[in-house]
């Protein structure tokens, strides 16, 4: 399954849940599929989508918070997995689009071909972890994630194949903050 196909599958299931996006193509793909006020597009700060999402989840325990992360981003901030597991927010859903490369910078190999990130998440203490490789498994797995108590971790194996013509996020960073905070009210 291609990254875009995975986004097309998941986005309609989001409802009004806040979603924090990792930098690079993940922001751009998701923006292209559907631009939502409740999307926080983190364009810089590689590795921090997960900690930002944790902060939102702890601050707003009445909202289920989703993080759309990348394998390179997760590998950069593995310690944050420990913070998430220790804080154990029930309302935290971590989705990782694992293409085994740093696609945004030209598809250089990452370590996730050797390191099963969902097992890292499980051993650190996430309550619910799954790996999905087939498109038809993705929707049902995400549905289970949304129904279970978190913190949850869904590893989605995707093939690299981002369309470089996909536009950039057109909102300014300041607008992204304002929209996201409005959506959270």
């Amino acid at each position, binding site marked *: 399954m291609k990254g875009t196909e995975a986004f097309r599958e998941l986005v309609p299931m989001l409802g009004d849940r806040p979603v*924090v996006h990792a930098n690079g193509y993940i922001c751009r793909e998701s923006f292209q599929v559907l631009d939502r006020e409740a999307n*926080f597009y*983190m*364009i*810089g*700060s590689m*590795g*921090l*989508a*997960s*900690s*930002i*999402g*944790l*902060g*939102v*989840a*702890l*601050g*707003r325990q009445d909202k289920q918070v989703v993080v759309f992360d990348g394998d390179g981003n997760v590998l950069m*901030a593995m*310690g*944050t997995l*420990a*913070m998430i597991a*220790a*804080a154990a927010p029930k309302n935290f859903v971590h989705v990782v689009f694992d293409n085994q490369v740093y696609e945004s910078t030209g598809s250089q190999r990452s370590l996730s071909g050797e390191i099963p990130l969902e097992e890292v998440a499980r051993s650190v203490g996430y309550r619910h972890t799954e790996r999905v490789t087939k498109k038809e498994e993705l929707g049902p797995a995400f549905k289970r994630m949304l129904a279970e108590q978190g913190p949850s971790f869904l590893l989605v194996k995707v093939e690299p194949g981002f369309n470089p013509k996909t536009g950039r996020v057109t909102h300014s*960073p*300041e607008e*992204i*903050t304002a929209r*996201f*905070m409005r959506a*959270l009210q």
Partner: protein
Amino acid sequence: MLSSERFIERLKEEGFSFFTGVPCSLLSGLISCLENRPDYLPAVREDAAVGLCAGAFMAGRLPVLLMQNSGLGYSLNAFTSLNLIYKIPVLVIMSWRGHLGKDAPEHIIMGDINENLLKTSGMEYAVLGDDNAEEVLARALRVIGQGLPFTLLVKKGQFDERH
């Protein structure tokens, strides 16, 4: 010397409601007042703490981040590519190791340049002293009200230590 307990109380009176960070012995008194509270989460790294505070702020909390100045090196990218451009404020309480070149070798360079790093990246800061705490706090709240981070630099002996 300022009382750690009283200072944390003042922060809470001003509406700060979310605390995280990586310890420094100079801040040990402050952290010991927070450690067992539900609104404190130990961070694994300073940049992750910056992200955590940003999320908490957008979710309606007013965050405080405690760190050693060595953590400024780790978190500079987060301040410049997150807080400063997204207008996400945070109060940073940063210990000033290596002040005036009197400290262990690993602190000397950062102790020499931390003010310049803050200045050159456009981050407002103040050096906390015995007599300026209220004034500095008022300034911090003004800057935070504009959606920007503010750093309080804390020298050795400014707060009671507990270790």
